[in-house]
């Protein structure tokens, strides 16, 4: 019992540490990366003594600043809901990391062995919670995040906030469907809803979701970015038109929205990596060592697991980078165009994807 508790705690620490740590880094990256894309320097001023780290201390400074800022609640706001909304935005996105596998099953006793028999040593899956319907859990919990935005906008007693909240509700509901349908293709291919099994099924590059489901990948990425309310789908914020649902928030509460946004980026990265990019699988890295172009390098179990964990983190990081790059390149869509894209383009395309996938699978079954 104690061991299970210990393992769970350790995994929670690793996964959430990674997610929260990366999202903190992302706040810095968002600025520095955009600066580099825009021929600027970006913020480099925060420092402790002479320690500047190219501005890496800025997230720290931001957090401190936001913590000590005045906590302002508009006089005519619905106070209870106003206070609740940021939590509603933050907590679901923290929950979903529970089912993301960040590494292969680990057999701690056999970490020196090359290619141990995992079935024999009762491996510990590097995943906080092993749930058979993991993906459904993800969608179920993630969709709760919409309430945060809607309630924040509504309870602020601000017209701009209200518009932002309404937009958020419509947008997140619409794209939820596409997002779900886009995954269905992958589920059909791999035949499981459990993320760990999904990843294990993508053992070779050929098995990766992006190869098997290229359309599904694009659709999912698109819908996922829309779910996270990032450019070009940042309509609920639309800072140059309606500022956004969190217009009245400040201090710690604003920080929660802020953190939730970056956690969502990490989350989307994790999800895309898991479903379409082979999760912790790295091309050529097998259970017993590195097999590349006919060469074989034996590696012990511990090393392999570590390499795979790092692979997963690297993939997530690169996906985050891609999301930031998109955000700093594209203009914002208009609300009706967004709806049209969602319902008239992405939804039919994802249905089409499901039908075609199912057809191909049926044909393949029939042929076998």
């Amino acid at each position, binding site marked *: 019992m104690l061991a299970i508790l210990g393992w769970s705690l350790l995994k929670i620490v690793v996964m959430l540490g990674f997610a929260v740590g990366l999202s903190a880094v992302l706040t810095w990256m968002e600025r520095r990366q955009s600066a*580099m*894309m825009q021929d600027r320097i970006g913020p480099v001023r925060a420092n402790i003594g002479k320690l500047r780290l190219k501005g890496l201390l800025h997230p720290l400074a931001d957090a401190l600043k936001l913590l000590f800022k005045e906590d302002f609640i508009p006089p005519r706001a619905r106070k209870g809901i106003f206070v609740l909304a940021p939590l509603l935005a933050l907590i679901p996105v923290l929950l979903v990391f529970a089912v993301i596998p960040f590494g292969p099953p680990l057999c701690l006793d056999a970490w020196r062995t090359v290619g141990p028999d995992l079935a024999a040593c009762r491996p510990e899956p590097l995943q906080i919670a092993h749930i058979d319907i993991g993906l459904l859990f993800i969608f179920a919990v993630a969709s709760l995040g919409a309430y945060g935005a809607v309630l924040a906008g509504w309870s602020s007693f601000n017209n701009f906030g209200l518009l932002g909240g309404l937009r958020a509700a419509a947008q997140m509901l619409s794209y939820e469907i596409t997002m779900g349908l886009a995954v269905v293709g992958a589920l059909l291919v791999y035949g499981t809803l459990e993320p760990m099994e999904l990843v294990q099924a993508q053992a070779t590059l050929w098995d990766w979701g992006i190869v098997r489901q290229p359309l599904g990948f694009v659709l999912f990425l698109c819908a996922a970015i829309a779910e996270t309310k990032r450019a070009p789908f940042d309509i609920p914020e639309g800072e140059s038109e309606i500022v956004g649902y969190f217009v009245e928030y400040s201090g710690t509460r604003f920080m929660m929205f802020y953190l939730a946004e970056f956690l969502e980026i990490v989350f989307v990265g994790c999800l895309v990596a898991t479903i379409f990019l082979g999760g912790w699988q790295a091309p050529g890295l097998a259970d017993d060592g590195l097999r590349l172009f006919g060469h074989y390098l034996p590696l012990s179990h511990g090393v392999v697991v570590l390499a795979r964990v790092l692979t997963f983190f690297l993939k997530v990081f690169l996906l985050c980078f891609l999301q930031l790059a*998109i955000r700093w*390149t594209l203009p914002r869509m208009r609300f009706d165009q967004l709806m049209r894209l969602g319902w008239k383009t992405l939804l039919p395309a994802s249905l089409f994807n499901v039908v075609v996938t199912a057809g191909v699978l049926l044909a393949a079954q029939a042929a076998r």
Partner: protein
Amino acid sequence: MAKIVTIKRTFWDQLYLPGVVRGLGITLRHFFVNTFGSKEIETLRYGEWDRPDPPPSSDPDAWRGKQKQRLRPERFRGRHRLMKRDDGSVRCTACMMCATICPANCIHIEAGERESPTSRSVEKFPLRFEIDELVCVVCGLCVEACPCDALRMDTQEHLPPVEHRRDAVLDREQLLSRAGVSIARDGGDGEDWRERYDATIGEARQIYRPDKQGHDDATIGYRRKPSS
């Protein structure tokens, strides 16, 4: 000749993706060039760099170089300074031309009378000469209006940030702290001023109305009828 610029959408435009990929290509190129390659960043770190000596004007790299310091052009209108005479006294004669033309009314002068003028035609001098650099709009008209070459804006300096507004009001001593000796000699002394001017004008860093401007009598076109 009109040129119609309207564009029509193509199938590729309708697909979203080509545009997105093309855009990402451009922005990511900038990213990688700036992060790993030769930088195209021209940001100037205001306040972190000191004013360098003015560059030789023919060196274009010095003017807009890739170094951290931005070099100001020769005509840059910076904080004011007052000039001195050969004998070290202030050139200004408190004629109020600058205060008169100043659109911001930021110059305040109080005139005084010298008991024993050290040279000719300087019996009047400014007891107080204050310029409020925060009110100043840096238009340079005061320099243009000064008939004594007493006031200049060629210090190549911005006024540094100040803690209190009163610190931005430069008094006579502060304005004189960067004083130079003008080559201009007023008072109509000597018959050879034209020749002397031609010889020394190269050193005179007069920004406005350079003294060598062309004379073209043919352009005198307008004659107003004099009135009483």
